């Protein structure tokens, strides 16, 4: 798994030391969230299921040898949670055609596909998270669909400052984002 969780952190996590618990949570949050979101077809319960999955990991007594082992544990837990959730929906609203269709969609959905999508989204999330505070703020607000003027107002800075931070952030991310009006930023890098 790209990115790092040092052996020291994993050892401290096995003892459930506070700092390591927070670090591991932070490291896997995006992974669990995007897996559950895909497996439940974008359910609005994704947030609760994510917190339940991560809490199960923290409560779990076993020792983990590596980040990969934690990842596998979380993936299986997320998959089971999502499957239970979808089953529940099916039982409660067995006659709802719409949900039935969703359910079938998930059944057919490839677990590996969900994992692939989660891997990509986790890496984008981490790349944005690594940005310095000011640039990250701008990118998060921009991703929410805010215009430069609105971002400037929200942060109490000039529009020029917003544009500058955004440009540098995009260069760092080397990524193409499209606003809702279809305008595309193409980032030219070295």
């Amino acid at each position, binding site marked *: 798994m790209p990115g790092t969780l040092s052996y020291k952190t994993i050892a401290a996590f096995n003892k459930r030391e506070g700092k390591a618990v927070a670090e591991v949570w932070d490291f896997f949050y995006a992974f669990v969230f995007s897996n559950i979101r895909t497996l439940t077809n974008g359910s609005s319960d994704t947030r609760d299921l994510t917190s339940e999955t991560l809490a199960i990991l923290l409560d779990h007594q076993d020792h983990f040898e590596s980040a990969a082992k934690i990842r596998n544990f979380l993936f299986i837990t997320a998959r089971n949670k999502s499957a239970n959730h979808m089953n529940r929906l099916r039982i409660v609203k067995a006659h709802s055609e719409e949900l039935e269709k969703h359910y079938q969609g998930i059944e057919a959905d490839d677990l590996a596909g969900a994992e692939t999508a989660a*891997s990509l989204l986790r890496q984008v999330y981490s790349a*944005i998270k690594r940005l310095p505070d000011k640039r990250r703020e701008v990118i998060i607000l921009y*991703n929410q669909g805010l215009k430069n003027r609105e971002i400037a107002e929200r942060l109490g800075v000039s529009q020029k400052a917003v544009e500058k931070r955004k440009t540098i952030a995009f260069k760092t991310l080397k990524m193409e984002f499209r606003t809702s009006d279809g305008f595309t930023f193409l980032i030219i890098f070295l």
Partner: protein
Amino acid sequence: MSNPERIGTLLFRYTRRELTRAEEAELSAWRSLSPKNEQLFQRQTDPEHIRKEVSLMFESRDYVLQKTKERYPGPWEEETKKPKARVYRIMRWAAIFVIVLGVGLYFLLSGSKVGRPGRYQAELVLNGVKITLDDLHRGFLAGNADIRVDEKENGELVYIAGNHRRAGKEKYNRLYTSRGGQFSLKLPDGTIIWVNAETSITFPANFSQDSIKITVEGEAYFEVAHDSAHIFIVSLLSTVNRQPSTKNGIQIKTTGAHFNIMSYADEPAIRMTLLEGIAEVRLDSSQAQSAINLSPGQQARVTDQKISVIPAVDGNEIIAWKNGKTFFRDAPIQTIMRTISRWYDVDVVYIGNIPDKHFNLNAPRHSNLSEVLSILQQQGIHVSLRGKVITISP
């Protein structure tokens, strides 16, 4: 289906336009494997989709964190929030001032830094701009995706080279170390090069080409990625015994090998040791042309325009430097001292008739010079250190 984590990484690199040609082929093979994969590719790389999903993750983070804490009330210690920018800036300058003052005082009180081992430090020349890579500068470089320096579990620092596909194919970047410096370099195909002290490496900015041409002057250990789709052609820009006799004349051609190159100008021979895989060593000069194929455990030595092959060498001894050791078995004092002078940044002077005797040395690279010299002294040779000069006498 292929490893989802790997495909996820390829998709990520695709959105950043970072794929090498080999990676492009890998991704396209996966896409054509099933219509479902193609569908997944189209959907997941749609910028609008990524924007929405990632945005939701950031929006939901605080809520999920709060809920997890409610479910798991055990110890939890988040990183303290950074102080406000202005205060932070003042604190940073104050910290720098204290460090500078401390370092100054150290030199004033201790006289010098002579005898301290080398450290992870290198200079990177990227598009003509020189950047210092070391632990101190790492923090300043963080967040700049073009200059990424990672720290490995063992504390080694490694520069992660990017693939600049729009750069000209003849465009090269350079990483070099001075005496007392060491660094690692990870290339876009996963190949890792450990760079010893007083060494210079040039490598292409654009990795989307079949042959990767690299030049080495000094000592470097290569672990070419097994799945690398590139042919590596390593040229040694070196002179033997300070005579520019073999300049540009030695080439190593390989696809997936592990090998060490030692081509310092003050060494009596250029040595290339193969630890894994196969490699061809070619000597091409005005006076001679020859080529040999090396097998693992063999060493090619180039002296006086000739290649000779040592059939079995101890690989561990050859790459001890890379594994954090200064290791010699049955070696002349001059050979040992050349390595010591590079790592501890000292000069060596010989007085009188130095006996033709061989020495052993096995010390961690982080040992102080005095510890290393005392090991040699115990084996019956006089060694003294004054300033930056070691004097060896019988």
